[in-house]
């Protein structure tokens, strides 16, 4: 039978992807789990011993870890609030029939395509430098002292850069959702004499609620892993002011050569991400039914 043949062929066609992804994710993850129970330093690679959960207790009780966890949450939450609220406003604006709408849309989406190392360095130097940066000029023209961004407000600076990268994403997704609002509903609302605010609250917001959820979940997954922006601007400093969990793990593994402790940190990061992932998967899974 053709279907029988198709089914077995199907399995053969899917298996390379499955095997590759399995090797790529499950195997290293199991290795990370294993390493996380060892005392294992790359400086002393012959002296490896099993230490149980000691890496976790020392990682979790390390003040740097608490700081990194708080930094991670502050970074994720701030960027989410800025990019989602900003994204709704930008999307509403871009949905208006204004002159040059297509050009506007290209300008708004552009930052998303800029590689993270470029965004971070351009912001740090050309814009936020306290001597010759563009913001310093604005501050001086208005009669203020320029802000020494990355020294005095390191976390805020990182938040601003990362928000600039993600605002376009939120705007684009929400705009796409807005555009699927059908004309009849809009007309009905205007016939009923709905004001702009009640129109937004009762019609627009419920319509884009799902898209907002998707934006929040996807951004959270990416924002939990912010790395390059910190790597090229602050290197996690000053002190640990901008060290998030990915950066802390990187520091433990590749700068301090402490494989055991870095692995424990990695596992903690995986657990954090999975909490978010479960919700996202549920939404996308529901979509598959349809």
């Amino acid at each position, binding site marked *: 039978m053709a279907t029988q043949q198709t089914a077995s062929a199907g399995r053969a066609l899917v298996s390379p992807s499955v095997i590759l992804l399995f090797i790529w994710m499950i195997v290293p993850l199991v290795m990370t789990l294993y390493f996380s129970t060892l005392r294992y330093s790359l400086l002393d690679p012959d002296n490896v011993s099993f230490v149980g959960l000691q890496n976790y207790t020392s990682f979790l009780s390390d003040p740097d870890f608490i700081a990194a966890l708080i930094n991670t949450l502050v970074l994720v939450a701030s960027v989410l609030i800025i990019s989602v609220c900003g994204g709704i406003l930008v999307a509403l604006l871009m949905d208006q029939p*204004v002159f040059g709408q297509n050009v506007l849309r290209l300008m708004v989406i552009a930052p998303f395509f800029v590689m993270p190392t*470029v965004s971070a360095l351009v912001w740090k130097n050309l814009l936020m430098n306290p*001597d010759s940066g563009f913001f310093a000029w604005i501050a001086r023209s208005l009669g203020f002292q320029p802000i020494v961004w990355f020294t005095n407000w390191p976390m805020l600076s990182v938040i601003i850069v990362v928000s600039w990268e993600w605002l376009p994403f939120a705007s684009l997704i929400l705009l*796409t959702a807005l555009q699927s609002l059908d004309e009849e509903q809009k007309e009905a609302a205007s016939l009923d004499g709905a004001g702009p605010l009640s129109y937004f609250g009762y019609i627009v917001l419920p319509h884009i609620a799902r898209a907002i959820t998707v934006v929040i979940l996807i951004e959270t997954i990416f924002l939990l892993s912010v790395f390059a922006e910190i790597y*090229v601007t602050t290197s996690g400093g000053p002190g640990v002011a901008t060290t998030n969990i990915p950066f802390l793990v990187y520091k433990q593994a590749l700068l301090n050569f402490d494989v055991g402790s870095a692995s424990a940190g*990695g596992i903690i990061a995986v657990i954090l991400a999975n909490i978010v992932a479960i919700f996202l998967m549920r939404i996308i899974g529901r979509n598959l039914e349809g």
Partner: protein
Amino acid sequence: MAIKKSTSERIGITVLAWVVAFVIFFPILWTFLTSFKSELDAIAMPPKFLFFNWTLENYADVQQRSNYLHYAFNSIVLSIGANLVGLLIAVPAAWSMAFAPGKRTKDLLMWMLSTKMMPAVGVLVPIYLLFKDLHLLDNLLGIGLVLLLLNLPLLIWMLYTYFKEIPNDILEAARMDGASLMNEIVYVLTPMAVPGIASTMLLAIILSWNEAFWTLNLTTSAAAPLTQFIASYSAPEGFFWAKLSAASTLAIAPILILGWFSQKQLVRGLTFGAVK
């Protein structure tokens, strides 16, 4: 909007929309302008907007000093090569899941998606150590493999949603005519799927081009792409803003143009079909 607006309101909204878009776009525009300035003009206070001595010298410098072409070549090879190989693996998988779904197809798709949720940092240590032992650090093959695997779930998902939209009747007709599986894929499915495949590829290239966790951690120079090239400007000596801008412009221009073409696919791809 259906709610009627007066002319003055319309003008107000237009102006506001342009101001907002300009502010968002400004850092890119400013980088572009700065790349044509001399280093002195680049740090001039007050800033020089358009009236400075336009020069192309930074572009020549960037090539001479830090060998831009080497990194650009790596970026091109990696982002196109990794995803072409990725397509070869993903197209058959997506095809069979879309047209010959089994009982577990949905679970399989969700599992593939779940691998994307795994934070890179959770597997950094073992991958780094394995690559060190296998001499894959700073190796095009090594980082290429990582980029391929990073995008594979996305490729399969996007292709799956595109293939799903191809009517099954056509394929059945081909089967009735006695087309073999191979012929079905090559002559019937592929031509109908080419637009979907192309936009999937476009998005995948953009993501690989900008990938900056693994490229920063697993490459140093020989196999390093443009992300690493730009990162080398984070520890500068002397005046370097104009050169940084030229380097940045060169690093983002090609992908910005591709990105503008692929806006629509971006939404579908990045939300795994949850928003279309």
